[in-house]
């Protein structure tokens, strides 16, 4: 039971990450490959504040999200002036930079040794210790994220985002300052990724740079594409399936020496199959350009 709940908590954290990336990639059509960097910044900020300054994880969570959002400005400012593949490469670069900092600034982050003993959340003086209470906590955050992102994409602002995805020049010709809107989307996406990172660190109670590699960014992107770009339900489905599915493969009853590689292969095949049969993703309507 504990195991199933753990998978659910992780799935919820991924839902927040996937939703926030979907806003950037799916709704606005900006190929971004560095989402794990934002959650890394959120996680480290929050954890370091708790460990070194003894601040409550709640303050850490909020500060972490804000620092991630600020990094979204710093990265987004030059990046959103790039188009398509170049933007993907620039955000890829961001992922590499943040990972390297986390790994090499040993005096602050303890580098590859990671940060152990990160305190958990407490609500009104009660320490959230049981996994049930954590599940509840992340569910609340998932609900808040869904609510806010849903409001954003169904507002006039959201329609401008879609217009940028459809045709940026047309959008500009209608007087939309597309650069500013793209930057805003980066900031919002980074903010929620920062929240997800912070939730993760206080839940696992240990972080090291290996949790925020490029593969992690690609996994989140996969969840967005797999579930369906530009669809909130898609992000939820995509994150759940891609978190749960590899776990299900554990129960195939194969000898452990071949089970691990088999899992990777089946996972890969599933992705290939889906992209051939349903390139717009499970719930999606829009294809990757």
């Amino acid at each position, binding site marked *: 039971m504990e195991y199933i709940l753990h998978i659910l908590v992780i799935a919820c954290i991924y839902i927040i990450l996937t939703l926030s990336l979907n806003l950037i990639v799916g709704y606005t059509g900006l190929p971004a490959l560095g989402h794990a960097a934002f959650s890394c910044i959120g996680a480290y900020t929050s954890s370091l504040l708790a460990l070194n300054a003894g601040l409550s994880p709640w303050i850490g969570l909020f500060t972490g999200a804000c620092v991630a959002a600020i990094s979204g400005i710093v990265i987004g400012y030059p990046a959103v002036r790039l188009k398509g593949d170049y933007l993907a490469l620039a955000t890829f670069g961001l992922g590499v930079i943040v990972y390297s900092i986390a790994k090499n600034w040993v005096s602050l982050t303890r580098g590859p040794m990671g940060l152990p003993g990160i305190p958990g959340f407490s609500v009104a003086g009660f320490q959230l210790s049981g996994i049930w209470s954590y599940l509840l906590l992340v569910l609340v955050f998932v609900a808040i994220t869904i609510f806010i992102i849903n409001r954003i994409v169904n507002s*006039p602002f959201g329609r401008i985002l*879609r*217009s940028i995805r459809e045709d940026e020049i*047309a959008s500009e010709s209608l007087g*939309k300052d597309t650069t500013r809107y793209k930057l805003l989307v980066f900031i919002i996406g980074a903010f929620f990724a920062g929240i997800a990172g912070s939730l993760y660190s206080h839940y696992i109670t240990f972080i090291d740079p290996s949790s925020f590699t490029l593969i992690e960014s690609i996994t989140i992107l996969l969840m967005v594409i797999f579930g369906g770009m530009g669809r909130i339900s898609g992000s939820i489905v995509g994150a759940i399936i891609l978190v749960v599915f590899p776990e299900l493969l554990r129960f195939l009853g194969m000898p452990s020496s071949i089970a691990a590689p088999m899992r990777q292969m089946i996972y890969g095949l599933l992705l290939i199959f889906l992209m051939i049969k349903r390139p717009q993703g499970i719930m999606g309507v829009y294809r990757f350009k």
Partner: protein
Amino acid sequence: MLLEVRDLTVHYDSVHAVDNISLHVIEEEIVAMIGPNGAGKSTTLKAICGLLKPKSGKILFQGENINGRQPHQLVEKKLCLVPEGRRVFASMTVLENLEMGAFTINNKEEVRDDIDKVYGLFPVLKERRKQKAGTLSSGEQQMLAIGRALMLKPELLLLDEPSLGLSPNYVDIVFEKIKEINNNGTTILIVEQNARMALEHADRGYVFEIGKIAFEDKAKNLLENDEVRKLFLGG
């Protein structure tokens, strides 16, 4: 004078796309820029509306130098472009496309009035208001693109190749509508491959040739000019 371009030069990297040209547009005119492919017509238009940065020269709109401004700043000044190839938002409905053009989002009544005006000009858009723009014919998409730009209430409307890829029937309709928009008080600067069609509807014309303006005259004089006829109007 509504628009004045003085000594405009635009480069693409090292290629001179437009070299030291000057032109002007007076209020309530229709001005056509014609000429062969690569002569610099579209480049000039893109420089005027801020999509390209000129190398040198002045672009004055209502007396103010707008050289180097961003497109969204120019839209606020009521200088609006209908880009080449229509570029409607395919997955949005016709109505949503028009709403995208609404600048004063806060005043819903005004937006509805503006949409009704566009419907009045293009009744087919009203019939198809709930349809996805991508399912319209290219002629209807062109009307939508023009209607969407009219939502911005332009003083000067720039049209880039409005007849490109349309059936002959729609070419006629689109030019009639352009005339109608002009009669309602909007000044129009148009780039067009279909030189005859453009000159028949315009007041004045500029004939481009490899980055320069070769001729400039009243449209009906250009239609009768032997050299222009031989080069661009098929004899």
